[in-house]
């Protein structure tokens, strides 16, 4: 019978022994090596070429995510089961991104870990409840939407006014007169606008204003042309 060769990496010895006993209770599981150090785990894996690496997310030397990334890159046959105390989609996502096949919560039942190892061994994904693929997808959707900041939104109302008047070619003194604030304040606002938008010159400011439709193109052409 072909046993599932397992490398076990967890920095807490008590926890590691617990897991070892739990896994060795399965007749077709074989623990080929165990370690409490991330770097050591990578080295042992390259030497032993286990079927499954069971690795704790938190590891000294090299954390579990990085161990997973390196091993799945170098040993395509080895599948990784990540042990974690975090029932959090961000961790799961990060673990999956780093090549992990299964994500098991440390306070999950023994049966879950065994199941995760079996699933991982054949390259199937396993997530401890309440984690689930739909939950992960939901998280991805949610967070992807957030990655769309328009820097214009970071401007305060005052800064938007200064941006527009500045792009129209008014001097700080003129803007100050229009907005009933001091030229020094205008200068500060203008500097903040440039900084927030990552602009370095008046030309870039005008170009930005045109691109954003703050300055109508025809009018600008008329005025400057």
């Amino acid at each position, binding site marked *: 019978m072909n046993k599932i060769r397992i490398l076990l990496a967890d920095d807490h010895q008590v926890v590691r022994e617990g897991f070892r006993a739990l896994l060795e209770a399965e007749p077709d599981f074989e623990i080929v090596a165990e370690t409490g150090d991330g770097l050591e785990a990578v080295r042992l894996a390259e030497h032993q070429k286990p079927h499954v690496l069971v690795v704790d*997310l938190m590891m000294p030397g090299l954390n579990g995510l990085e161990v997973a990334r390196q091993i799945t890159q170098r040993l395509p046959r080895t599948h990784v089961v990540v042990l974690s*105390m975090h029932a959090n989609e*961000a961790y799961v*996502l*990060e673990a999956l991104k780093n090549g992990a096949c299964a994500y098991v919560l440390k306070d999950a039942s023994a049966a879950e870990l065994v199941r995760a190892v079996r699933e991982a061994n054949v390259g199937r994904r396993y997530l401890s409840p309440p984690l689930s693929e739909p939950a992960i997808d939901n998280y991805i959707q949610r967070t992807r939407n957030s990655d769309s900041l328009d820097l214009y939104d970071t401007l305060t*109302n005052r800064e938007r006014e200064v941006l527009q008047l500045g792009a129209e070619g008014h001097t700080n003194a003129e803007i100050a007169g229009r907005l009933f604030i001091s030229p020094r304040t205008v200068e500060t606002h203008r500097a903040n606008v440039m900084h927030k938008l990552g602009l370095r010159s008046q030309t870039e400011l005008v170009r930005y204003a045109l691109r954003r439709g703050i300055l109508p193109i025809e009018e600008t052409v008329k005025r400057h042309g």
Partner: protein
Amino acid sequence: MTQNQITNPRSRKRAAAKARIQLDVAQRILEAVPAGICQVDSHGAISFANSVAIDFLGLSYDDLAKMYLGDFHRKVIYEDGRECPVHEYPVSRCLATGQPQPETILGVRRPDGHVCWGIFSALPVFDDAGALSASVVTFIDITHRKEAEQALRESEERYRQLVEFCPDGILIHVDGKIVFANRALRESVGHDFVNLPVMQFVHPDFHEVVLARFRRLNEGESAAPWHEIKSVRSDGTITDIEVASQAVALNGRRCVQVMIRDISERKRADRERDQLFSEVEAARSRLELLSRRLVAVQEAERRHVARELHDHIGQELTALKLNLDRCASASADASAGVIQEARGRVDHLVKLVREMSLDLRPTMLDDLGLVPALHWHFDRFFGTSGVRVKFKHTGVTERRFAPDIETAAYRVVQEALTNVVRHSGAKEVTVRLWTSHNSLSVQVEDPGVGFDPERALARGVSSGLAGMRERAALLGGRVRIESTPGSGTHLTAEFPVSDIPQSGS
């Protein structure tokens, strides 16, 4: 009677004696008057000189008796130092015209080189036939007066030079009207101001002080000591100056001489020093406040952790121990239920410990970075406060920053959200995170009631705001709060970051 007197030998003798007495008297008078008297005959020969004249001219009687007017050539000068030619001597003119000559001041160089000064006048003398026979020169010795005048003139010149070239400004005013200003003052003011009222140049704030000083000088005080005031020029420039006044006499009038020193440089340096000092002082007290707060925060955190450990974890562990005790004594059937209960307690304990650990520091911040940690925090924040966070970011997902920067950004957001819950009343908050030009910025915008950030800081009530500022400042960053009561708040924190994206994650 006269005929008789002449013809009568006795009376002639008497007359002769009388004449001798008269001559004698005349000579005594001539010697007694304090004026020099000479007689010069029509040929220009000196025929008489009294002892005052002899002393004045520095000659002996014998020398003088042999001299003619021409011998004084090149020895007589006018007051202005020009040589007086012989024909211009009052006596020469008198002999030439037969007219009395008015008083003229002339100097005569004596053989010893000393110049004596006198007021000369000349009267014609006619013989019995009415012809001009001589001229009598009289003069008063004014050498002493002339020398005193000269000394005075020299002293005045020295004074003038001293005043004129003094590096401090000096002006003289009579009853408040400027009558003189020295070069330093003229050059510094840059325009003519003589005849202008002196008060025109005194800053209104100091009118009272300056007028009081004038009053005291007028009442007889001789000097008013150095005193700092501000001056104002016609162009409005205000200068810090130091003035000292002194009562002096000018042409017999009592006037005031004022010395003026420009101390604007010194004042500027003073102000700069004071400002630096107060900045250092403010920084020191901010630091003191911060360290006091740090200690307070640390203590509060410890108290919280201690309470959590005791109230929750301790209680659960006690209950768990009781479960185990019951298990030991219970029957197999009964213990199954107890074990089930114990497992529930263990689960709860695991959850409690995890929450506590996350409250102290979210491991996600270290493991996954700012964006996932913030997402996680916003979920939790919504769960506890009911305030929804709209999170938008750009350019930060695949980047990691220095741990202290990530921590600071995270804590600023955490603190700002806490403030939102406490003060703003907003039900939705927007958090923005972005990078630009080697900086990482985070912004928390809430549409709540808003506040006056400077006043909040000044009142010192918002230790949170001050804490954020200190945290950012320690990393070379800054926190800007734009808020107006009634229209919400923009809090923007900015941290400098190196532009090297981290490898790995």
